[in-house]
């Protein structure tokens, strides 16, 4: 017997054993195994990609520059509030791009400076003099916002997804300001998109109820006509006002329309001061969201409502008016309600969004791929069917053409596939449809190495060499071909892996592993059988 046969056989057996152990959790057999099995042996198999199990793949871009704008807007609002609280008169705060223009009586310069130094360290003075100041965001503050808002958005989205309840979600930062979200098995992608993509900036704004233009305002408009209405009136609504809309749908008639409101621009109170948001049911079985403010919010809300009794306060989320109730009296206790015409589900999603907090900036959808579960299982079924058919055809051909040696090649191919899928399971790789294609392709290529060897052996036999020498020479001469050709294909796989994304990467991993394992089985597994045959005393014919 030739040296090392035992050692090689053991190596192959060990590899096969490991591969099968890692494969088991992915097979139906796993469910009938005892509990302790999962504790001793691997309990995680190949996981299926979104294209096979169904789900949603989203890439969002956080518009970080807008986060800077928002921060300036917020600073301007709270500066106004702070000055009001100090009972300063005759001041104005106006925002112009990223600058805040502040005017105040010249004799109060000192008070203003104290306020700015104590509570507004994020702002820096650009120009000043004679009761005027131009402020902007400090550079360090701006950079902090630019770098942290993506992470902040990531956190918020993670909270929303957690509350929504998705099994095994993947949420991660990608590149500078992108967020990758994968939600397997989601069945209502539109709802998920609503939930994730909403900026959810909640604001309370006062209505302008006295403006003369209100007589010309239509009571309601068709959806889609908003821009036209704004263009018609924008020159005459006054500096401090804006037009916002409320979406309304009549459940009985199924009619959709929008109600325009003339709203004062300044935010009297922002919604980030809340501690809780819950769905409640009103007296007509209509769901609404009740929100609870924190201490500071409750105090502010009491003050705002107290100052504006008998006026209407619009509750605005992402520039959409949800409702605009009349303030009947001062509201203390820190509770408010958001009603509007929504379904129970919409109300509960809104509550989730409010609890999870708002995104620091709006997000833009860069990529949204959704695969329904039916298509996924369809693809798996078709993939395995194609795999089975191609394997049978290749097996049939190899045995017909090379007979016993063909059977050896088929055995090598089988080992190859088991090791390949086992390796995928060991790496806990994600199997995608292109990945299945990769496996099938490697079935075709797996026999290539054996074909090279067998053709060489045939050539040597034709040249009249004895069987033993023919086998050795065949192997030796085929080796460089197999090695070089596999290395070049491996290079392609590496390039695909480095520059590919998602499914393409899956394909590259399968192809790369397939080639490496291919090399192993051709040069070790098949060889050991021939070495064994060679080692026998009599070997005069070879079925090839």
């Amino acid at each position: 017997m030739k040296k090392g046969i035992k050692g090689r056989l053991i190596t192959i057996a060990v590899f096969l054993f490991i591969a099968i152990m890692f494969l088991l959790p992915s097979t139906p057999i796993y469910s009938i195994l005892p509990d302790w099995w999962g504790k001793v042996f691997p309990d995680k198999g190949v996981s299926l990609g979104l294209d096979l199990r169904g789900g949603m793949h989203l890439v969002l871009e956080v518009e970080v520059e807008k986060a800077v704008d928002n921060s300036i807007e917020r600073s301007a609002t709270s500066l106004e509030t702070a000055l009001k609280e100090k009972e300063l008169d005759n001041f104005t705060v106006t925002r112009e791009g990223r600058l805040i223009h502040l005017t105040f009586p010249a004799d109060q310069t000192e008070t203003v400076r104290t306020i700015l130094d104590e509570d507004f360290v994020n702002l820096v003075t650009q120009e000043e003099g004679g009761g005027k100041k131009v402020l902007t965001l400090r550079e360090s503050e701006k950079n902090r916002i630019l770098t942290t808002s993506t992470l902040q958005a990531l956190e918020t989205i993670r909270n929303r997804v957690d509350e929504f309840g998705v099994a095994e979600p993947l949420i991660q930062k990608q590149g500078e300001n992108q967020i990758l979200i994968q939600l397997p098995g989601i069945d209502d992608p539109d709802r998920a998109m609503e939930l994730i993509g909403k900026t959810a900036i909640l604001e309370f704004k006062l209505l302008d109820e006295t403006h003369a233009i209100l007589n010309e305002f239509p009571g309601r408009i068709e959806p889609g006509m908003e821009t036209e209405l704004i263009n018609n009136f924008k020159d005459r609504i006054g500096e401090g006002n804006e037009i916002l809309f409320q979406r309304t749908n009549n459940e009985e008639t199924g009619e959709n329309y929008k109600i325009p409101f003339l709203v004062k621009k300044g935010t009297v109170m922002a919604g980030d001061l809340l501690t809780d948001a819950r769905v409640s049911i009103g007296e007509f079985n209509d769901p609404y969201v009740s929100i609870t403010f924190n201490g500071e919010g409750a105090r502010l809300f009491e003050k705002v409502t107290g100052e504006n009794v008998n006026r209407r306060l619009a509750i605005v989320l992402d520039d959409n008016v949800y409702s605009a109730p009349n303030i009947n009296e001062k509201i203390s206790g820190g509770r408010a309600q958001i009603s509007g015409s929504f379904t129970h589900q919409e109300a509960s999603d809104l509550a989730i969004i409010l609890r999870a907090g708002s995104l620091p900036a709006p997000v833009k959808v860069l990529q949204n791929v959704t695969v329904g579960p039916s298509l996924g299982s369809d693809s798996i079924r078709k993939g395995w069917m194609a795999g089975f058919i191609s394997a049978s055809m290749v097996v049939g051909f190899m045995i017909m053409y090379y007979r016993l040696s063909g059977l050896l090649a088929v055995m090598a191919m089988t080992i190859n596939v088991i090791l390949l899928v086992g390796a995928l399971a060991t790496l806990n790789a994600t199997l995608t449809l292109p990945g299945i294609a990769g496996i099938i392709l490697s079935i075709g290529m797996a026999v290539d190495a054996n074909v090279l060897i067998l053709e060489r052996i045939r050539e040597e036999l034709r040249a009249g060499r004895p069987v033993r020498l023919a086998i050795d020479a065949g192997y030796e001469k085929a080796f460089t071909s197999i090695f070089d050709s596999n290395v070049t294909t491996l290079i392609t796989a590496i390039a695909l892996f480095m520059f590919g994304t998602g499914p393409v990467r899956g394909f590259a991993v399968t192809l790369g592993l397939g080639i490496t394992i291919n090399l192993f089985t051709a040069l070790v597994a098949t060889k050991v059988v021939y070495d064994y045959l060679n080692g026998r005393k009599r070997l005069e014919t070879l079925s090839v």
Partner: protein
Amino acid sequence: MLTFIKKTDINFIGKRKQFFMLSTVLVALGITALILISSGSGNLGIDFAGGAAIQLKFDQPIQINAARKALEAGGLKNAALQEISTENKLIIRLKKQEIDKTNLRSKVSDIFSTSFSGNTFVVESSTEIGPTIGEKLQRDALNAILFSLILIITYIAFRFEFRFGIAAAIATFHDVLVVLGIFYVLNVEITLLVVTALLTIAGYSLNDTVVVFDRIRENLKKRKKETFDEVINRSINDNLSRTLITSLTTFLAVIALFLFGGEVIHDFALAVIIGIVVGTYSSWFIASSLLVSWQKRTESQGKRVLKRAS
């Protein structure tokens, strides 16, 4: 012993000029396709061009013209529709659309549920891709191609000779371009998966070429008395049955994928099938013939140098 091919002696090199002509035409087609595709007039898939693809599965057969009319009435004018009639499936592609604000998925499903209320359907899949991702994917694909090309030339030049590397690279480019050209003529959409298939073809074709080159290297050492042409011809002939059988087994594997793998993988399989044929052709008629032409040029230059010296 079952053999398709007995010992052969086909002159692959002799007819190389004719095959160069044929390949030039095919490659020119491929380059035209490449230029047209990169300038935006080719059938670039939404992965690269941006836009949306929505796949619906209906209970009953659906008229493609009625579907188109309904979409147009709903304001989606430039939809490209593809029908998989055996399974009542309809794929709607909307290219170069703004994807963010208009949720195309729900728009399309609204249109169909009102226009075809008797025919219930499910949205099997939807893909919406913005232009930034599309550009990134294009860049990545190009990088992958360039990166693998440089590495492969280096590797082959290191293992063989520089001219082998160049010849292999040209043959590989040839294969990818020819398949691209054929896809352009067939109006197959160039998606990310098709690009993956093109790279797979590159790998496959190189594999083939390298096996032949390996034989050439071996025979060049062994058959010192024969001319370069003869050695190359001999090497291709030696490898003929191996190349055929490998092509055949890979072909068998992929044809099953093409026929039974479903619509997602269909174009990928088609590309690989065409690629196998083209790759086999190029390693016989192009890659090795290039080596001969190279040799002839250096020889004639050598002669000229000799003449001048005398």
